[in-house]
């Protein structure tokens, strides 16, 4: 590092390069290999980090991504940004949680989610013991490998389900409901693990009674904070609304999420737990969209930095000796979720095809796994090699999960054990709108989404890459998909009237927009104004009427 670079300049350059490279890396992976962008972001981090290219000195910037002064893989400033990003991520994750749907499919979702969490944790922690990484099931290494294997990243599976048009299938809905349970339980597991590790670090050792106490404390904090949050959410949202401006509302909500994150850490739990609870509390208020829209920008920029920072912390040379263990751990992570979730599904009305789809749909791990592993590394609870194993597992499950899930739907056979008789299954209606052009379809897709939101539906875009949405409210569940010229909305027959009325209001608006003669005149004028200064030779705009004088004319 050239001596003239101050720490602040170094940090700004690091951040800038990370933002640029993660965007490019994520884009390439998506575009060329149709892989989730997160893999590209992680690999960019690994490549740029202090254990790969970062250890070399480069022209102008020197060893910009070398080891930090304290010996850490990333500078404290960059780690702070990554922590902030993880808080934003979990806050938004809580905000997007659909408690109503979870409650509606709670039986199958809970069984599947619980099965996946228990088996994953047991095999993850067991792997550490069986393969000789540690001797005790209660050691930080075992606990963190168990916790890391626990949390599914359902966003990746949701994209596959959407592409296969299986979001509203029994398997799709069960995966989504199980993912909510999985998230909550995964975070509680993290809270318990962090508590146990902290207790061990303070010299107390870990006994079963300590685990019980820590579990009670974690559950207590979780249930207490969530209950208070949900109870006060409406009052809190009223206070936020007092400030009227969406920016102020979102900033205050995020500010309180950070405060609760800090309190959560002070209570001996991880910061992301507080952030998640804050998001969850606000998830049932009508401020969800406002907050989400305003904070999404921060998420889009900083979350790739988080993944890259996690990648930077991977010491490739530390993984090599444990690569075999890492591959076994990754394989067990795939199997544990697939089996742990598929088995309970067999008792929830699914046959082996349906159970297998649910199992593989729960395989991908993502942000929560990395956050857990990152906390482990930062607190010194796990070593570089264990952290590397966790990242390897995240990469492998993120690649294999979508492949398996997509393949599992190749065979179109029903996933249900007993085919619903006529009248038992809630009949679905498909409302298909074909527009004159993809642009018009896109415009109407946006209008219809807005119209549902105005009716206080919870509308969730499944992934930034695919224009597919889940539209939910109470016991209503619709899907919306936009492809080329068409927009397709699938609704249960019983709610068809509502969907048709909402859509028809937007169609009325579109028609009146197209028919407005006066509006067309305005469009003509605006269009003329916009292009009148183009290709004029001297670069000066042409006046479009006698009474409109350009400043240049005034000067003359």
């Amino acid at each position: 590092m050239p001596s003239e670079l101050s720490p602040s300049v170094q940090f700004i350059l690091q951040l800038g390069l990370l933002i640029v490279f993660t965007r490019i890396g994520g884009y390439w992976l998506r575009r060329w290999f149709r892989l989730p962008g997160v893999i590209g972001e992680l690999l960019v981090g690994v490549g740029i980090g202090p254990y790969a290219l970062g250890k070399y000195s480069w022209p102008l910037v020197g060893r910009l991504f070398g080891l930090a002064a304290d010996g850490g893989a990333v500078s404290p400033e960059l780690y702070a940004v990554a922590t902030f990003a993880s808080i934003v991520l979990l806050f938004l994750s809580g905000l997007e949680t659909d408690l109503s749907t979870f409650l509606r499919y709670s039986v199958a979702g809970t069984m599947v989610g619980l099965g996946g969490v228990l088996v994953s944790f047991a095999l993850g922690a067991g792997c550490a013991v069986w393969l000789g990484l540690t001797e005790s099931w209660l050691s930080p290494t075992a606990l963190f490998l168990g916790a890391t294997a626990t949390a599914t990243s359902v966003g990746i599976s949701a994209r596959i389900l959407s592409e296969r048009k299986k979001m509203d299938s029994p398997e799709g809905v069960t995966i989504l409901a199980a993912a909510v349970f999985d998230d909550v339980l995964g975070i509680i597991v993290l809270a318990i693990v962090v508590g146990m590790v902290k207790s061990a670090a303070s010299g107390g050792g870990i006994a079963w009674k300590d685990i019980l106490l820590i579990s009670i404390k974690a559950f207590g904090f979780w249930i207490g904070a969530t209950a208070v949050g949900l109870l006060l959410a409406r009052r809190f949202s009223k206070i936020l609304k007092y400030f009227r401006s969406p920016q102020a509302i979102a900033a205050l909500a995020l500010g309180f999420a950070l405060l609760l994150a800090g309190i959560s850490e002070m209570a001996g739990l991880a910061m992301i737990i507080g952030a998640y609870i804050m998001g969850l509390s606000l998830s049932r208020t009508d401020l969800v969209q406002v907050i989400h829209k305003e904070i999404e920008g921060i998420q889009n920029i900083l979350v790739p930095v988080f993944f890259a920072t996690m990648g930077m912390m991977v010491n490739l040379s530390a993984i090599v000796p444990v690569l075999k263990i890492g591959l076994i751990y990754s394989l067990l992570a795939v199997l544990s979720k697939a089996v742990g979730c598929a088995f309970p599904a067999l008792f929830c009305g699914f046959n082996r095809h349906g159970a297998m789809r649910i199992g593989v749909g729960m395989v991908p791990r993502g942000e929560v796994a990395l956050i857990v592993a990152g906390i482990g590394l930062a607190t010194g609870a796990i070593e570089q090699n264990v952290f590397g194993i966790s990242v390897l597992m995240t990469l492998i499950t993120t690649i294999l999960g979508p492949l398996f899930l997509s393949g599992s739907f190749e065979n179109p056979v029903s996933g249900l054990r007993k085919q619903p008789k006529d009248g038992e299954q809630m009949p679905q209606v498909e409302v298909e709108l074909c527009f004159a052009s993809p642009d018009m379809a896109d415009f109407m897709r946006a209008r219809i989404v807005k119209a549902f939101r105005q009716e206080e539906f919870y509308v969730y875009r499944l992934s930034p890459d695919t224009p597919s949405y889940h539209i939910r409210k109470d016991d209503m569940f619709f899907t919306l998909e936009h492809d080329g010229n068409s927009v397709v909305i699938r609704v249960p027959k019983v709610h068809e009237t509502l969907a048709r009325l909402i859509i028809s209001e937007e169609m009325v608006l579109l028609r009146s927009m197209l028919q407005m003669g006066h509006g067309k005149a305005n469009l003509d004028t605006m269009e003329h104004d916009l292009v009148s200064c183009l290709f004029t030779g001297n670069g000066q705009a042409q006046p479009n009427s006698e009474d409109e004088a350009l400043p240049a004319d005034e000067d003359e």
Partner: protein
Amino acid sequence: MNSKKPLTVETISLDLKGATKEEILSEMVDLLMASGHIRDREAVLRAITDRERRMSTGMQNGIAIPHGKTDNVDCLVAALGIKHEGIDFGALDGQPSTIFVMTVSPDSRTGPHIQFLAEVSRPLNDANVRAKILSATTREEVLQLVLG
């Protein structure tokens, strides 16, 4: 959601007097006034007629659902009116409209406004319910039929 609360006995008419679409709309807005949540009657009528001008809300089987949005109402308001002889409301099936469900909701506030309209209209899909509404002798009876 207690979605049908905006519809009360006070905002139901068993015998609308109007003979034209405009007269029926005006009479229905008068019914809405009973809710006590309308600040400007003319603005509400204008919102309804504007919407009606874009596309008629006359549906099939004698049902019409005139509605509109304006910030001149405090909250969602609703009325139901019956015109036994029926009037030409520009219905989809060309038949005279006999049962009118009117809703007006605040323009700048989100809420289950169309959901309310859909829920109130749902029982009207049933020919028996329509027949019972048309032969009802009390407003309470109509309210009961619509509330299901």
